[in-house]
């Protein structure tokens, strides 16, 4: 937002690009979970574009992005976040878009030293080089600390009116935001990618391990954002809706999975991801009962629906909480 405004202040025509990777935090959990419904459901990229009065192009890169997540040349950060490869990928895609649409250069809001992996003094040139953007990549917020880029050398933009922010502090950005009159903006360092989230990364790593390959489909990574995930056996895991909003969301997937739901008590919709036999189904039913309102009842009726839509009911004793091994819970 700030970088774009700095450029607009110099009379540069700016348009925004927002890449959808499938791992975006924004919106999804708010859209799913009923308890979050009261929160404003704005897409920050659209909101920022409106504040700036610029066009925004939202581009679905979820398929090509898989290679970034699965085979990051520069490795992962603290979790399964391939930040440096991600940055290079996005700048390259932005460059391709810019060239196809008659734009002269690209800008990002990066600041030297702000992030431990992708925004270090030694890694920022890596993004320039590997994206192919070279000196057509301008970082208006820290440009004075970097060699002059093509737009600066050619006089398309005035280097003196760019900035020299560095380090992890957001104070200079907040001061600049105040100068521009921005009263509301996305929370700095709030994390916009599920891959930086430890719990999410554990679930993704478990998915890869259980399938014996590092791959995923969009539905897989969407489902990792929803529900309580339990893996009682290597061959299957359960995705258990935690509340009405999640149950409604999981409803959309029930035809693709064997699924269970209590019928004698209020309780969750549970998807079975993997292959199960009758004894596995009984275990799944006991766990379903455990997370239902019948958790303290002697028996709970749980309806099981197979992939052909055939239904049968199991009468089971809810599994006591202290019998659920911690390592089942992902």
């Amino acid at each position, binding site marked *: 937002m700030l970088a774009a405004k700095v450029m607009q202040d110099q009379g540069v025509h700016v348009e925004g690009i*927002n890449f*959808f990777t499938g791992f*975006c935090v*924004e*919106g*999804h959990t*708010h*859209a*799913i979970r009923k308890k979050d*419904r009261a929160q*404003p*459901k*704005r*897409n920050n*990229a*659209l*909101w920022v*574009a*409106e504040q700036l009065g*610029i*066009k*925004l*192009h*939202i*581009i*679905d890169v979820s398929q090509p992005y898989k290679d970034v997540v699965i085979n990051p040349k520069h490795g992962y950060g603290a979790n399964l976040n391939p930040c440096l490869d991600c940055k290079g990928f996005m700048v390259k895609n932005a460059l391709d878009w810019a060239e196809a649409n008659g734009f002269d250069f690209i800008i990002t809001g990066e600041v030297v030293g702000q992030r431990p992996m992708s925004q270090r003094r030694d890694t920022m040139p890596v993004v320039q080089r590997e994206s192919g953007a070279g000196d057509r990549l301008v970082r208006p917020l820290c440009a004075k600390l970097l060699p002059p880029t093509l737009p600066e050398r050619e006089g398309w933009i005035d280097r003196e009116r760019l900035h020299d922010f560095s380090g992890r502090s957001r104070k200079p950005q907040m001061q600049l935001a105040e100068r521009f009159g921005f009263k509301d903006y996305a929370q700095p360092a709030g994390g916009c990618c599920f891959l930086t989230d430890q719990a999410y990364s554990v679930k993704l790593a478990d998915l890869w391990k259980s399938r014996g390959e590092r791959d995923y489909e969009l539905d897989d990574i*969407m489902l990792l954002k929803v529900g309580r995930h339990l893996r009682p056996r290597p061959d299957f895991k359960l995705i258990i809706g935690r509340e009405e909003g999640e149950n409604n969301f999981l409803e*959309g997937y029930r035809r693709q999975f064997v699924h269970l739901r209590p019928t004698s008590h209020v309780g969750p919709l549970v998807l079975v991801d993997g292959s199960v036999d009758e004894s596995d189904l009984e275990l799944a039913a006991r766990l379903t009962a455990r997370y239902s309102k019948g958790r303290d009842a002697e028996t709970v009726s749980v309806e099981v629906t197979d992939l052909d839509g055939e239904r049968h009911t199991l009468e089971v004793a809810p599994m006591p909480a202290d019998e659920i091994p911690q390592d089942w819970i992902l």
Partner: protein
Amino acid sequence: MSRRYLDARRLLCPMPVIRVQDEVGKLAPGDELEVTCTDPGVVNDVPAWCRLNGHRVLDISHNENNEIVITIEIGPHG
């Protein structure tokens, strides 16, 4: 003037916006697009995208399945 229909149910934002964006690109000024969605975020996101790109939201309503139906008129620049 033609009217097209888009099914964006079960998609979470920003996918409905991306689908709208792709579909609008195939339409001419004055055409209408009716998109059906289930993510409540579309009530904010689709109108915001339309405002940014010069299109007009004609109507936002709920159908008999309580799904959100948004009708868009394509702006003068397509």
